[in-house]
């Protein structure tokens, strides 16, 4: 579970200050698939960065599974990211010289997992994301959707408490976007993976259990979409197909 209290983030010094977060309090329960939506500059990515320990809040606190992550030093934050968090970026962010398998292998290797176990887990996860036959391909030899699935596999390899996705479909067409979102949904349902995803596409809402709408650094409203039917409504992309 993630609990954040009165999170603020102020960028800039002196007279010109930008308040990216203006006092956000929220709770993400275990097994939830939460979407964070809002216009540009609303603070949704900043909030995700706070959850992902990529940035520190100006004030406020974040508890992840009972750990006050604000109190961790840099080394402990790195270890926390490695062992407890998974991150999926907008532009896949794979290491170009590593194959799909090696990209996934990397975090587990850094964690100290035995080589044999690493190989087994990587193959399992790549099969889970539908890339069992592409494990020896380099990122340059794969489509955007395939690369993003490798990135998801990499985020999952250490069985994270929380999977964070920062506009993971921004660089994908609607067909590949749906593949990724379906995959997230499958992971959420089958593995009870907690997922927090930033998006600005309205049709993505159908995949989320709950949506946090943000505006001007504050939570404007929250919307629960627990109904199965609602979660599998038609998307603009789907409507057109």
């Amino acid at each position, binding site marked *: 579970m993630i609990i954040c209290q009165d999170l603020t983030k102020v960028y800039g010094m002196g007279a010109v200050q930008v308040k990216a977060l203006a006092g956000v309090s929220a709770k993400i329960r275990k097994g939830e698939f939460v979407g964070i939506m809002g216009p540009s500059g609303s603070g949704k990515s900043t909030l995700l960065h706070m959850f992902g320990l990529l940035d520190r809040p100006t004030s406020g606190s974040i508890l992840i599974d009972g750990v006050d992550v604000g109190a961790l030093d840099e080394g402990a934050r790195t270890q926390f990211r490695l062992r407890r968090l998974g991150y999926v970026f907008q532009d896949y962010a794979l290491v170009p010289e590593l194959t799909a398998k090696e990209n996934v292998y990397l975090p587990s*290797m850094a964690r100290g997992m035995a080589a044999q176990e690493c190989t087994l887990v990587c193959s399992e996860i790549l099969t889970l994301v539908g890339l069992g036959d592409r494990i020896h391909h380099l990122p340059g030899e794969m489509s955007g959707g395939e690369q993003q699935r490798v990135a998801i596999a990499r985020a999952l390899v250490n069985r994270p408490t929380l999977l964070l996705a920062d506009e993971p479909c921004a660089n994908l067409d609607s067909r590949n976007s749906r593949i990724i979102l379906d995959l997230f949904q499958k992971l959420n349902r089958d593995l009870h993976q907690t997922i927090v995803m930033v998006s600005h596409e309205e049709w993505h809402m159908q995949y989320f259990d709950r949506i946090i709408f943000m505006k001007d650094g504050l939570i404007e409203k929250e919307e629960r979409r627990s109904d199965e039917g609602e979660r599998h409504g038609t998307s603009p992309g789907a409507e057109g197909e």
Partner: protein
Amino acid sequence: MFEESKVAFFLAKRSIIRGNKGTLSLTILIIGMVFVNLIFLPSIITGVAVLFNQQSIDYSYGNLVIEPKKNQVFINNAGELQRKLERIPGITGVSPRYVTAATIVYKGNEVTPALYAINPDDERTVLKVSTKVSSGSFLAGEDTGQIVLGFRLAGNENEKLDAIPSLGGVDVGKVVEVTFNNGVTRQFRIKGILTSNSFSVDSNAYITRKEYEDVFGLEDRANQILVRTRETGNENEMRNTLLSYGVQEEIWTWQEKSANFLNQIIGSFNIINFIGTAVSLVIAVIVIFIVIFINTVYRRKQIGILKAIGIDRSIIIKSYLFQALFIFAIGTLMGGLFLLIILQLLAANPIVFPGGPVAPVVDLPLIIRSMVSLFLVSLIAGYVPAWITTKEDILSAIRG
């Protein structure tokens, strides 16, 4: 720590195998050439030192030089001392000589070289001067009225070609006028011209001891006795042996006699070598630094992502360090092979210096010193840019 190194090595290995081969090859080539430069110039300097040392022994001093006791001009009873020395084990030659200055005149050209009065047969047992006659012949034991000149002293008709004041192109058979420092003037026929590659020999004049003693009214004296020993390198030990046999005169080793001259030359070479080494290492630092820096800056975003997914900064730095060390290792190996080829070629065809042919001399300490300095330079040049780039906070790096 080991786990970290394992991951760093994994990243470095993949980067080397699947990265840009052209840049990597060029970098390795440059480091290889730097390694060659680090070794080649000092090896030539060592070769020059070896040549000069050998020339000092073969053409100027032998292994030991015995000179009169303090405040004395001559060694008295030189013949007796010579016989005593010849009986000492390990001594293969003894040559008593007079060393003086004289004025030589030929057709208005006047020079004042060092004049050596020698017994040619004794001189042959110590020095190789007699083997370097390029025209005419060397002195014989009973020669009088005969002189042998170094080719620089004999000179050229066109004085612009002369390196020192000369007799203007005098040749074998010509007669020169020699004035000794007691005022006696005699005429000498030129018996031979020496061309030895040793600057001092080629600038000297030689007559027999018999002639000199006749001019000065001396008998059985010398102001220098050269000694040749069976082995080179144990001169200090041999000096002690001579002392133990009761030799009371001043005994110098060839190193001591030639120290100033050699030290000046080698000192000058070492300054040039230091500059060359420093420039080479600076080139190595710059090349590796630029390659790693461009590599890290180009991958700034990727480095940010790696940090974001929990890869420790030290792992990323180490991966670049491993790459720098790979460049060092392969560059050194390649440079070493290239150097081996050059050394083989130069051993067969030595570079001819003004002092003679010089073959490069490579010793283990030089190789180790060059490798260690290049290793340290590679470490620094790999570490600093990786450290600078990975210092950036994650979000700035990801945003590029």
